Structure formats: C-alpha cells, structure tokens
C-alpha cells in the first residue's frame, strides 16, 4: 500500500498497463510536450503523443487504432471536451462492434475530468455520467477513491470495449491508500463504503465523501446509514443496491448531476420496478438543481447537493 493522491493513482493505473502491454497508447492535448514528460520518457513518442485541439480527430483516431488492434487511452482533460466529438463517442466507438456482427472490437479509454464546480461556470462543471451510461456498447467508470482510480483505470484499459473513464476534478488531490503492484477493480461491482441498517444512500464521485459525511452525522442521532458507491454506472451493479434496499426499505439517491440527466433517476426507475415491495417510503433523490452551473460562489453552492441536503433527504425518507 502507498498513500497517494487520486490523480497520481490514475497515472499509476495507466503506467501499470503501459508497462505490461506495448499495444497501449496514451495521447491527447497538452501532454508530452517535453522530453521529461513521465509517460513520453518511459514509452517513447511511438506510443505517447501530444495532439492538437481536435477532439473529433483524437477520438476518431482512437476508434480506428482500436479496431486495428491497439489500446488507446485518450486524455480529454474535461468531460465537456468530449461533447465536441459526441458522434465519435456515442455513435461511432460503441457501434462498430455491433454493426460488424462482432467482427471488430474497440478497446479504448476516454479519460476525462468532470464536475469541477469551483467557479468554472457553465461550460466546464457538468456531471455527464448519465449522458453516457445509456449508450449500449459504452462502459462508464466513476472512481471516488485513489485505489478505485488506479484499479478502474487498469480495468478500463484491459476491457475490450470503449470506456468513458470519468475522474472527479474535486477529488484530484484527495489522498488514499493504493495497493502496490498489479491492481484491478472489476467493472459492475459496487462498493459498500459503509454498512448500515436504516437507510441506503447511493452516491458516486465527489458525492461519495459527502454521503459518508452525512452518514457520520446521522450516526450521532442513532440513524444507521448504508453508503453504496457503484464505481461503474455502466455496467451498473443493481444487485448490491437492491440487496441493501431489501434490508433498509428506504433509499436516498445522491447525484451531482441535474435530476433528469442523472444516474440517480435511472437507479430510481430500476428500484421502483424491481425493489418496490421492499420500499417502505418513496425514493428520495438529492441532485443538483435543473440549471446550468452559475459562476458566483454562493449561487454555485445553492444549486449543488451537499452534506446538509443529504441529511435532510435521509430524515425525509425516515419520516
């Protein structure tokens, strides 16, 4: 185990796979512009390259390289930059295998930060995970800890499908214990971050530490919350969530996204269909307000879910 920040753990995951497999490429904007860049120095310019600001070409090239047998990791920096190349992400990468009747595979990773709600205003702060989770053929990883960041990145690179790897920008410097050596976290397996009997809280990314904080606060009042982090939203580990709701009968779904574009609304629908008999109260969703993110600090805080709103959500569901 080594203590390292979330961002270093992602790099550790990429290094682990690049060392192991010469077919892994790493490229994108503003990386490897000098010889001392860690990845360029380790793997050379055949595999590590800077690209222009050309997302459609970057991601399209990754699709082609993947079909030709390589494993590209594209550095996109911000999730919104993927929107420039939405066709490649949604309508090219995940379609090729299907349309070819399984002849080709498209193993690539689109690495992008998201949710940078600290004054980045309307175009750089979105929580876009749900936008991608409903696209058949795409997988979506949303690590909340340093260990998961490493393990999910490594699994993303080994996966034979296109993976949108969304790392949360506000977690960038959060330290965590990360296993040494080869480490993989499987896709589709939620992590029960805190066991509890009274209420189930499901959260991803930056909302996970908020949910754990709320659970701690509630514990002082004798409320025992279970906190589940799905870790990947496609595939989504519904079984773990359903099992928890069977036990608690009450659920609060937390998501930094706007409500109708949130992972929580998808989980809510699945719970209504498959967990209805276990529910002892209506599902509560704690999400961002349905708005573009404002620049001004108090307004930004006003529209985002936080610990207090999660606590309030739990109190409501327990009434």
């Amino acid at each position, binding site marked *: 185990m080594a203590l390292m920040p979330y961002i270093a753990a992602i790099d550790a995951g990429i290094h682990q796979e690049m060392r192991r497999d010469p077919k892994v490429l790493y490229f994108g*904007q*503003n990386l490897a*512009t*000098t010889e001392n860049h860690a990845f360029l120095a380790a793997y050379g310019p055949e595999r590590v390259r*800077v*690209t*222009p*600001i*050309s997302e*459609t*070409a970057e991601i399209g090239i990754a699709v082609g390289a993947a079909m030709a047998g390589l494993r590209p990791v594209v550095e996109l920096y911000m999730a*919104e*930059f993927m*929107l*420039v190349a939405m066709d490649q992400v949604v309508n090219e990468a995940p379609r090729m295998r299907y349309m070819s009747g399984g002849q080709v595979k498209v193993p690539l990773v689109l690495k992008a930060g998201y949710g*940078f709600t*600290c*004054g*980045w*205003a*309307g*175009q*750089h702060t979105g929580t876009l995970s749900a936008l991608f989770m409903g696209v058949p053929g795409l997988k979506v990883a949303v690590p909340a800890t340093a260990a998961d960041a490493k393990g999910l990145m490594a699994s993303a690179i080994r996966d034979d499908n296109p993976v949108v790897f969304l790392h949360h*920008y*506000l*977690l*960038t*410097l959060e330290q965590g214990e990360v296993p040494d050596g080869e480490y993989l976290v499987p896709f589709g397996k939620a992590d029960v971050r805190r066991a509890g009997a009274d209420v189930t809280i499901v959260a991803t990314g930056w909302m996970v530490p908020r949910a754990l904080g709320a659970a701690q606060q509630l514990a002082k009042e004798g409320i025992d919350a279970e906190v589940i982090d799905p870790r990947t939203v496609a595939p989504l580990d519904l079984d773990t969530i359903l099992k928890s709701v069977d036990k608690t009968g009450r659920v609060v779904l937390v998501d930094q996204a706007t409500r109708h574009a949130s992972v929580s609304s998808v989980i809510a629908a699945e719970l209504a269909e498959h967990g209805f008999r276990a529910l002892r109260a209506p599902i509560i969703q704690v999400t961002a*307000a*349905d*708005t*573009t993110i*404002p*620049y*001004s*600090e*108090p*307004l*930004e805080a*006003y*529209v985002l879910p936080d610990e207090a709103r999660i606590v309030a959500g739990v109190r409501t569901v327990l009434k």
Partner: protein
Amino acid sequence: MSVQSLNAERQVWIYTQMLRIRTFEERVKRTFTDHPGVIRGHTHLADGAEASIVGSLSHFREGDAALATYRCHGYPLTLGSDPKAMMAEVYGRADGLCKGLGGSMHLTDVKRGFLGTSGIVGAGIPHAAGAAWAAQLRKRGDVVFCFFGDGASKQGAFHETLNIASLWKLPAVFVMENNGYNVVTTTAQEDANAAAGEPLSVKAKAYALPGVTVDGTDPLAVYRTVGEAVERARAGRGPTLVESKVYRLSAHGNIIAPPGVPLHYPEHEAIAVFGKREEYEAALRGDPVPRFRGTLILGGVLTSAQADELAARIAGEIEEAVSFALKSPFPKLESALEYNYA
C-alpha cells in the same frame, strides 16, 4: 483605409484602450494576491494582445458585432462596457455584467455589440458566422468580428465555418490571435503549417478567402490589415482570415486546482515548461503597450507628461472598478435558476 486616416486623437484613443485593458487585467491578476478567494475558477489574460484587439475593434461601428473566447476582457472594455460591471462579474457579484452567472470566461455585453464567448475552443467561430448571416440579411453593411486563438484553427468548427462563410460571402472578419502557445503546447508541435514554416493564414487558401498575417503587436499594422478586411466585408465581398501574431505575456491562466489550494498565476510556459527564458524576455522587450507609448511620444502625438497623466487616470478608473466590485453584493440565491429558459 490608411494610417493617414488615423488622426492623433484616434491614435491616442487606441493607446488609451490598450492601457485600459492592460491595467484592468493587471488588477485581475493582482486580485489573486490582494484578495485571495475572490476570483474562482479559471481566468485568462490578453496581455500582449492589446494592440491586436484594439487595432481590430477600431473599425467597429454601431450595428457590428463581436464574439470572442474565454480570454475575453479586452473586447468589451474597448467597446465601451463599464469596467465596474466587468470586474464585478469577474468577482461573481450581483452588479456583474452577466449578473455573476458567467464570470471571467463569459463576459457578454449585447448592448455594445459584444455577443459573448464560449469556453470551448473554436466553438464561437460558427456563432460569428451565424451573426454575420444576420448582418448580411440586414443589408446595412454591418460586419462581425470573430476573435479566436491559434489552437482553435485545429478544430473542425474552424474549417467548416470558413468554408461556409466564404461560400456565402458572409460579412465576417476572422481574427486569429496566434500567441504561439496552446496552453503548454507550442504551435509548431500541433500545427502542420507551422511545423512546415508556413504562416497559419495559409489555411484560408483551402476555402478561397483571403488570408493575411500581420504583426499583432503593432496597433497601426493591425488597424490597416483588419481595415481592409472590414472594408471588403462591408462591401459584400466576403470574409477574410487575419492571422495576428502576438505573444501571450502571462501563463495560459491561473493554476487549475481544487478548492483549498490558493489560486495564482504561474510563470509563463516558455520558462516553466520549456526553459526558454530568452524567448520570453525578448517578447517582454517587445511589449506592445509601452512600445506604442514610445511611438506616440516619439511621433509627437503625446507628451510623456500626458502619457503619465493618462496612466494615472486609467489606474484610478480601474481602482474604482475594483472597489466597486468588492462592495457589490453576491447575487440572490434564487437568481441561479432564473435564466435557463427565455
């Protein structure tokens, strides 16, 4: 459009706007140390590009429009926006130009013809063409000024828009401010023309519109070159691509960091990343703002006492903007939900 048409008064106006931009942005930069935490997110300064901005917008007349990028403080200042409202926006306050919703990256002042900015590289270029279509329909000879960086010319949006604008003879002037760097990537590292030693204005050739390169640190040269492009557009002969060569004197932006890490401006990438101190210092020696001051004094257009007086007046104006912005309240919380729909 000749320099002769630029009388002394107009030249002083150009210098005044250049100095206002510089002073405004120096105060933005200083806010990180003077008032930590007041500016959030990401700010981008245009120091080094003032001559290009003002030389271009000298041709702006009522009915015209301008669009730009997240590096946007200079345009509205030149077009007459209130620096108090601009600083209040950068500080996220209720009296801000955009009510505190947009911040430094998204200044907009529609009343003055500044239609706004995108934080996504290249995304504003087609918006400008759309505005130019509207101008074409008005048949009043209105022109749209479209400002973007060298990095944006690697976007599909740039190429797609240049093709359509040329094909439809849209009254637009595409001013590419080539500052040599896309964040930490040099132009030669990401641009095939630059790597081959060609000016970036050759890209216009592919779409059959004029492409010219101008020294963007010389306001009179920019005035001349953009003037010809504007004249052409007003006459209905279509758009022009102007590559305006500038040097960004500050880093790309303040450091990118999560809350809790104090924000500041790091050293320029030429030094911090590439160790090219010489290159940076040469650019500093060519700083367009003091250089144009020298030109005007040498040319007898301005005395140095007048220039000092002007600088003091502008410093006072921007100081006032800072105090105004600091005193302006935060917007009402519910206003966060107000403008999602018309």
